[in-house]
């Protein structure tokens, strides 16, 4: 630093573009003239996108059935009635039969849908212990307080998995039967129950506790199943890769839904003859009806859906794009009118000058 008080302009500020606020700048001026092409371009682009989305959404087929069992809606109402008031509800099964006149283009996914089920309820949503679910032995035996009142069983044993989410695990099960020819035998359609959860959930986030003597049951020794569960967690499936905390149904359930009406993937149909989709014919879904939803006005649905690049069927986005695109075009026209009139005025002004 060479400056001193006597140097010429010692206190003179730097004359740089930044300090003098003279940085080169783009100065858009919002007016009809500028907005006009913007609106038209955006409108056209949106309409194009909207059409694409609309058609691809339309290409997705969906087949859904409400099996809640409200009175007069098919045979599941029996089960619904039977389950009323009894805790644990007796095992009951019902069926949903439908016919496909033509091939249901695959890959076909089987979803169950619950509505009016507030998985996003705050006190429900926090009632879990991720550490426990990741197989941490210490957490297994000491679930976090958030799990209360499903933290410890009445006997004082830690509940595994703890918390309200796990406790309310959806426990209906489905099997799909296909009748190729009318009157023919029903063949069970293989449902791929694996790969329905996120890969990371299944492989990273959810882990079973380390096996004790090669046995998962022993690993869970000293814990109690959630009160609503008829079976302990290590008994969820016979497949050792699909039981315990890494049972995929469980993993899917534990990913709480965003909205009170939600779907969860139950199975994928992609094996054998059904890899291309569901061939035409009669089908029956055998439903083992366990899950009580009628008490709080909930609904249960079964959905067969094909899938495209944009996921499941959702016409909204396409329509929304079309609407917004049209709006853009419309406003563009308004702008055009404004612009032309404004331009005239300007010209007049200039003429006057």
């Amino acid at each position, binding site marked *: 630093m060479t400056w001193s008080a006597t140097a010429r302009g010692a206190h003179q500020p730097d004359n740089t573009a930044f300090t003098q606020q003279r940085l080169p700048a783009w100065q858009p001026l919002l007016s009809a003239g500028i907005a006009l092409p913007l609106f038209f371009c955006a409108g056209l682009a949106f309409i194009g996108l909207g059409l694409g989305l609309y058609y691809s959404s339309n290409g997705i087929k969906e087949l859904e059935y409400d099996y809640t069992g409200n009175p007069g809606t098919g045979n599941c109402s029996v089960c619904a009635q039977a389950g009323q008031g009894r805790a644990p509800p007796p095992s009951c099964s019902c069926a949903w039969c439908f016919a496909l006149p033509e091939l249901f283009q695959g890959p076909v996914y089987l979803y169950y849908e619950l509505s009016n089920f507030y998985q996003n309820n705050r006190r429900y*949503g926090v009632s879990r*212990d*991720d550490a426990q679910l990741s197989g941490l032995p210490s957490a297994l035996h000491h679930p976090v307080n958030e799990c209360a009142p499903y933290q410890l069983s009445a006997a004082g044993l830690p509940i595994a998995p703890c918390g309200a989410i796990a406790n309310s695990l959806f426990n209906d099960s489905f099997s799909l039967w296909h009748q190729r020819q009318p009157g023919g035998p029903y063949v069970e359609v293989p449902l791929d129950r694996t790969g329905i959860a996120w890969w990371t959930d299944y492989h990273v986030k959810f882990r079973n506790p380390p096996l004790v003597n090669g046995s998962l049951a022993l690993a869970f020794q000293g814990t109690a199943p959630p009160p609503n569960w008829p079976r302990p967690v290590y008994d969820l499936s016979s497949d050792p890769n699909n039981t315990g905390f890494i049972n995929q149904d469980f993993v899917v359930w534990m990913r709480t839904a965003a*909205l009170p009406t939600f779907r969860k993937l139950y199975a994928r149909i992609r094996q054998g003859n059904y890899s291309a989709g569901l061939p035409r014919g009669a089908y029956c879904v055998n439903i083992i009806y366990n899950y009580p939803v009628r008490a709080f006005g909930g609904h249960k649905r079964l959905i067969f859906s094909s899938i495209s690049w944009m996921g499941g069927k959702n016409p909204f986005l396409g329509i929304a794009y079309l609407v917004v695109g049209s709006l853009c075009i419309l406003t563009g026209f308004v702008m055009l009118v404004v612009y032309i009139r404004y331009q005239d005025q300007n010209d007049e002004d200039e003429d006057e*000058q």
Partner: protein
Amino acid sequence: MEREPAAAEEPAPPGRRWRWRRRRRREGRKRTVRSNLMPPPGAEDTAAGAAKGARRRQCGGAQHLADNRLKTTKYTLLSFLPKNLFEQFHRVANVYFVFIAMLNFVPAVNAFQPGLTLAPVLFILAVTAFKDLWEDYSRHRSDHEINHLGCLVFSREKKQYVNRFWKEIHVGDFVRLRCNEIIPADILLLSSSDPDGLCHIETANLDGETNLKRRQVVRGFSEHVSEFNPLTFTSVIECEKPNNDLTRFRGCIIHDNGKKAGLYKENLLLRGCTIRNTEAVVGIVIYAGHETKALLNNSGPRYKRSQLERQMNCDVLWCVLLLVFMSLFSAIGHGLWVWRYKEKKSLFDVPESDGSSLSPVTAAVYSFLTMIIVLQVLIPISLYVSIEIVKVCQVYFINQDVELYDEETDSQLQCRALNITEDLGQIQYIFSDKTGTLTENKMVFRRCTVSGIEYSHDANARRLAKYQEADSEEEEMVPRGSSLPQRGSIGSHQSVHIMHRIQSTKTHRRTGSRAEAKRASMLSKHTAFSSPMEKDIAPDPKLFEKVSECDRCLAVARHQEHPLAHLSPELSDVFDFFIALTICNTVVVTSPDQPRQKVRGRFELKSPVKTIEDFLRRFTPSRLTSGSSSIGSLATKSTHKSGSSFLSTLSNNSTLLRLEERLGQPTPAITSNGYSSGAEGWSPEPAAREQEPERELEQAQEQEQELRYEAESPDEAALVYAARAYNCALADRLHDQVSVELPHLGRLTFELLHTLGFDSIRKRMSVVIRHPLTDEIYVYTKGADSVIMDLLLPCSSDDARGRHQKKIQSMTQNYLNLYAVEGLRTLCIAKRVLSKEEYACWLQSHLEAESSLDNREELLFQSAIRLETNLHLLGATGIEDRLQDGVPETITKLRQAGLQIWVLTGDKQETAINIAYACKLLDHDEDIITLNAESREACAALLDQCLHYVRSTSPCSTPEKTMDNMSVGFSPLGAPSTSTTSDPSPSLVIDGRSLAYALEKNLEDKFLFLAKQCRSVLCCRSTPLQKSMVVKLVRSKLKAMTLAIGDGANDVSMIQVADVGVGISGQEGMQAVMASDFAVPRFRYLQRLLIVHGHWCYSRLANMVLYFFYKNTMFVGLLFWFQFYCGFSASTMIDQWYLILFNLLFSSLPQLVTGVLDKDVPAYVLLTEPQLYRSGQHMEEYRPRTFWLNMADAAFQSLVCFFVPYLAYYDSDTDVFTWGTLITAIALFTFLLHLGIETKTWTWLNWTACGLSILLFFTVALIYNASCATCYPPSNPYWTMQILMGDPMFYLTCLLTSVTALLPRLFFKALQGSLFPTQLQLGRQFTKKSPKKFNAPKETFAQGHLPGEMRTEPAEQKSVSTSGPLSQDCTLPVSWHTQQPSCSPEASGEPSTVDMGVPLREDTLLAGLSSQTPGSSMPEEAVLEGCPGDSKRKPTSTSRTTLLSSIFNLPTFSSLNWISSLSLVSRLGSVLQFSRGSLQMDKQDSEFLPSAPQPEQDLKRADHGLLLGASSRDCS
């Protein structure tokens, strides 16, 4: 975070804790100070070294006096955390945020991980703490620097003065200070190298006054001939306890023998002042450190809250209400929801931990509290921090603006208040001081009247005009040299003198431009008030001739009995006049680079005359007997009777001594026998003189260049320099004598008997001297004309002499009025010859008064009044206080910007009015209401009258009792001027006394109402208190934003009261600056500060605040809509981390960049279109309407941003946090796009910030989502973002949602931009249309120097502006081709001709220029359609000025002016409306035409009246 910088404080010297704040209030009302050198009883600490000895302070232990260590820091290492936190929690916002964070720790209601909510609060607190710490650290560093300044302290061990640090000085220490050293503590002056025991100090650091103050050694110590020895000092000093009164110090010193001597302010050297002109002084420290008066006066920075912030706080309250409403709504919803599902055994319902289900009411209460936590973002926690950051940046940019940098003083604008930058954009009223603010406070001698004859000093006027043209200095010499012969009377001396002038101008020419010369004079700090402009005065040839004649005559006649009698009365007056100019002051003569040393002989007695014996001794020739024998012995006892004996002249036998003196040899030997040189500067040997006039002149010249005058006020310096220009140079001033150098007479030394200093009540000062030529006792008095004129010797009209005298008086009075009209500061010079008896008689009472203890001041005052009577008028001077550069332009611009400018000045009415005209504050074609009332009733009546007048807006209807002819002159003019609604408002001039009445409770409303109607208000003769009262009144009653600008101590109160205080860091120095929020080097910088920076700051901050509210509301809206789908359970779909970090991290940077850098309108457009400033005044950017519109838009956007994803993901298997992340991303994009719509200028920084913001979000999200599979319960977002980003739906939804959300805003903005553009938008459009045209003037514009080319560009730009609604002002309907008709007599006689509105000044100029600049006149060819009002107004001004010019010539007008003042005496006052159109014609013609090559667009209109007046005269 807080710790780290705290460690930086470590370098604090050890022993800091040792000094641990000993701040006990001492008992008693007095402080006793003893020498530290006296051995403390019992404690003899011999082993201690010098340093330790210094610390062994006041070992007595009873007194804990502060040492001299300066400590302005607030914190220590230990106390920082608690103290800073304590201070921070004084902010309600912080308490609120902490409350929220604490709430989150309650398990039942917690919404997030408890620690997480603390994060933002801690962040905010940490940032603020860091800022505080940094400030404290820089304070500490400056303290440290000051504490380690060195000074000489007497050490007991070493028995000599040793160097010590300032901080080691203690009360009771002896300090030796040398010339130009800064005083380290409040020190009682005990010894000075000055033989008179004087010491000069400069108090600029304290009060900003650059003149030297005189301090005196304590009485009793000045007698010490040998050097003062601290070891012998055993007296005890008793004084008052430390207080902050700079002007007062009382105490006494008790000597060993029990004698007491009083101590006064004159004995105290205050900390912070600088020793000047004194070689060395010794004193004892009385107050040290924080007990010094300087530090007690230092009252830290102020905290002001800007208007915008207040409004913002109000809106924050709305947000709180909204928050409570939302939470309540949610709580009720949740209660109902719980109640609905209570008994349903719903699987998602979670019972209490004990298994019982929650009652709906409890659930609702919990939900309420949780909602408050969840929605806390609505209260923008980061807003406060962001605002602080933005303001700091704004301050940085203002500081850095090169166009606010003043090259002359090498200073830039300082922002002293950091938090009111945006107030600059909303100012409605400007209160300005006049002297030093509008004017330079550089007093330049302009004209004078001697003995009734006026000397107009035309050459001087020309010279001043030259200074106006800054840098064309090389040509300056030629006209100056040639201008003098025009007067025709060039004596030989004058030609020599001209030579000399040229030489002296060369000396400063060498330094280059005027700016540099100024800087050079600023840098040579030894001299106050002496820019070349003030120094070099071109004398009036006639007067110069007369002075030379006097000189010659006296030189010849000097040895005769009555040398002065040989002069004609007029010449005698001339001679006395210049002698008075030279010596009737307190100017100190110094040579540069040296302290004032007296090497010449001096009287053995202290002067002024102290005792009667003193008087006797001095006025009896007894002392002369030793030196000369020609005077017969006069009995000393007969002094009183033999007055005539005093008339005896001294013989010229002291030639030897005189020669000695002339040679300038140091004669220390003579000083020992004091009186040997008693006759020292008596007249020099005439023979030698006459033989070598050339040599003498050269010598004088040298001396002249060498000597510097240091005056207490710039006026004094101006007069002394003026006298010097007439070769009557002040050569030396000692305490008891003053020498004047004359070319022929040589050095005349006057014995200075008394100096009766200036005070504001007497408004005059006098010196009593003994004239060396006649040995008579003369009183020279200099003072305000109003006072002096009343004190003149009443002259009988019988004899011729008396009649002549009377005539002189009336003529002088006339000229005085003329001077006042010209805006000059007038002073009258008078003299009185005292007979010895009269003097002796007066002296008797004066000495009594001086020695009186009780009411000394009062008695001295009386005594002075007794002396200053029966004066003989010598003449009067007119001193110009020049306008600062660019003041009229600035005022015009500020006016256009809608600012009302009030000038509050202590000056008298005429001067103030004329300065106001000069700076275009008053217009020549507007009416002036003058309010001069002598009583409250009169004031009330006048106010009513004025109000009536203003309401009726017809000047004819107002009673004009005193001026029938005036009203005749005006009556045809009133109607048209009122028919135009744009600016018919008159201006108000009010004097101090009326102001005092008007400010009383019952009248203030009327006064304000009147003032509000007026275009400008001028308060004359107002006291500092009145100034602040006016500001306070306007501020509180009109609820207006006020700005006060001033430069002096008298403006401090006003500056403090106003919303924004601006200090001018000019001549008068620091006091106003210390009190101000902003300090500018010049008044003209106010224009850029307000119109550009003020506007920017306001618009930026307003937009940012609005954006903040929008952002938070919109974000909270998302969460709120979600409650409808989660049972109002206060659940969030957005991950809590995003929720917390979103405001702080992801979306904060772009808005900060925009808030700091965005320029809605470029600077040059703002400057050319000052009316754009009104948007800030009317709070257009941020007002309740915009706020609520903004909130509505936020609500809409949040609806879109929630429901589009809702519908898009309805019935899907998406999970809550994936969906939430999507919404977060959408919100981010929407925010950025919204900001994009709001951002007006996109620099690379904006792009970067936006890009960075997006990048940051995705990076952080990706890292966060990949970092830990099981952490962050309950959201547990593992791999969410990764999955989401692989989904095309994510992008499609983002695109659709953001665009849909912003569609309406974009639509309306675009539509509004086209259909109903605001002024600001139009301003921006001009930029677009003609960006290149602005480039050329851009550089030069704000410098105040408008080059010739500038003329065309703004005009062109204006012509564009008239196309839009912007041109409300109907400026400039100008065509160059219409000039001819306007000059024809029939056109000027016909008031309805539109062509009248031609700025003739430009015409005349362009007539010459048009051939050179054909291109420049092109744009003007377009004839614009003027407003109808315009076409009417201009003719009126024409006719008005013609009428006036035909009715009045100047002298009659000035008498009219006095009629108005006479009417004041009639205790009723009068309402006075007149136009000054013709008044200043002469002056303006001569003054403005030379500078006319820089016409300012905006001035055209203001000039019309004047110009038309001139033209019509020319044409007729």
